[in-house]
């Protein structure tokens, strides 16, 4: 809540005093034409109450968080095997020693992620658009897109990885050997495009038909209507769902280790074997969590901004 600027606040007025608005400025004018206005005692008391209430809820949330954390902590460290688990999973020296290798692997994950995220967006949008095409001519494309989403949402990602990563190179289509991360990116793109296209399609269908009517009545073609009016609105509607899929994908890039790529997960596995200690896995897990948090916060911020811009009135 932005406090009204340019208004002086009354201080020390006795409680219960009647409201006294002063239309005319009693001091020098603030910020252009806006005259400062005395705020009534009633309103000051209300603001004080809201402030106290805000402070009280902050205190309550801190206390409840601490209590929950303390209980969880006590429950864990009082288990009989805690000392051993701590040594095996949370060993700071091994964490530090394994970090460089795990980090190198993590950079590979990031590269694969960035590449597949872009490809998924493009391919997913293409599939969604194909499915919304009207008219009998487009039936084959519509059916193909529908079949594609059915199949690739049905097959587990691990199996797609095996089929793409080991099967396609086996065809020896191309004379050169492509790196494992190429096939990993392809498999991720194939699977996630199927999910994302359904998200897009839901968004496109959620744009009210009147928007389409308005665009077509201006003389825009079907394609222009989709590109300039429908898809931008659909995109806004589905951003949270898309970001959700993106976070899921951030973790699933770890599965490319199954193809033999030395990513964060595989590097952690190697380090774990070297030290006879599971701490490197925890290090990798931490890196993935750190990767996910900014995305999640960004989504929250973006949706709040869109809502503030396009929706009038307060949230009830």
């Amino acid at each position, binding site marked *: 809540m*932005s406090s009204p*600027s340019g208004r002086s606040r009354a201080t020390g007025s006795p409680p219960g005093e009647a*409201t006294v*608005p002063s239309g005319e400025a009693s001091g020098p004018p603030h910020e252009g034409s806006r005259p400062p*206005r005395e705020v009534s005692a*009633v*309103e000051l008391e209300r603001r004080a109450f809201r402030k106290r*209430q805000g402070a009280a809820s902050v205190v309550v949330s801190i206390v409840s968080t601490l209590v929950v954390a303390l209980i969880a902590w006590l429950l864990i460290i009082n288990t009989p095997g805690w000392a051993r688990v701590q040594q095996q999973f949370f060993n700071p020296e091994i964490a530090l020693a394994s970090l460089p290798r795990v980090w190198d692997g993590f950079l590979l994950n990031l590269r694969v992620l960035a590449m597949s995220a872009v490809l998924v967006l493009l391919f997913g949008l293409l599939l969604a658009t194909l499915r919304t095409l009207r008219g009998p001519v487009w039936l084959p494309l519509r059916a193909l897109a529908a079949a594609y989403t059915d199949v690739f949402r049905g097959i587990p990602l691990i199996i797609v990885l095996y089929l793409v990563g080991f099967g396609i190179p086996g065809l020896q289509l191309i004379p050169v050997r492509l790196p494992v991360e190429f096939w990993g990116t392809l498999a991720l793109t194939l699977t996630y495009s199927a999910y994302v296209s359904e998200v897009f399609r839901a968004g496109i269908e959620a744009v009210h038909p009147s928007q389409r009517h308005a665009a077509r009545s201006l003389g825009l073609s079907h394609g222009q209507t989709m590109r300039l009016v429908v898809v931008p609105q659909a995109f806004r509607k589905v951003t949270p769902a898309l970001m959700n899929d993106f976070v899921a994908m951030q973790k699933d890039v770890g599965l490319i280790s199954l193809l033999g790529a030395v990513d964060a997960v595989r590097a952690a596995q190697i380090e774990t074997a070297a030290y006879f200690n599971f701490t490197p896995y925890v290090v990798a897990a931490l890196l993935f969590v750190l990767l996910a948090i900014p995305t999640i916060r960004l989504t929250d911020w973006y949706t709040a901004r869109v809502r503030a811009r396009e929706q009038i*009135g*307060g949230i009830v």
Partner: protein
Amino acid sequence: MSVLRLEDVWKSFGDHDVLRGIDLEVAQGEVVALIGSSGSGKSTLLRTVNLLEPIDDGRIVLGDADISDPRVDVDAVRARIGVVFQQYNLFPHLTVQHNITLALRHVHRMKRRDADAAAAVLLDRVGLAEKAAEHPDRLSGGQQQRVAIARAVATSPELLLLDEVTSALDPELVGEVLDLVRDLADDGMTIVMATHEMAFARDVADRVVFLDAGRILEQGRPSEVFGAPREERTREFLARFTA
């Protein structure tokens, strides 16, 4: 005793003062029409009364309780007030009947049978008994607005707020909605309505309040405000409607 009393209510959006010290008292059974150009603060005034917009200063008293106090239970306050919106705002996923019984059953904890019976009586009154099982989108604008009014009065509110309820309707359909509002007024419902229908305001309202730039510039009986406006701004505004 007054049903609603506003004391020096201020409200701003950012740097823009929308309400600048509104004082208004509405008596039991009174019909008050708020008139004024777009942006004069009519809708904001109604929204603050229903606590959809928090006010920056002043006091809003419903019955004998200060409802602008942050300690009040806003849901309980809103349950005492009926609101009809310009765009109807019916729930498209519910049938006409369920739109009306929703609050009766879930806020006022009425038994399903009783709520359905109450809805049937209301629908009969607004002339839409045969539409009970339809979904709102299949109805005309005028019919939707009549359902919205039925929904607002189903809970027997102490106060009914009407926010330009005919502005989204084409002229042929305005009559059926206004007839219903007139009917409610004759029944003794306390009504505050923002309206552009000057003829209707003159006909039905007990008092007309002219808002200009967030202030009440002039108010009085319709015959006074429409017949002999004191303020130059009021004359200007009314001239545009009679021209």
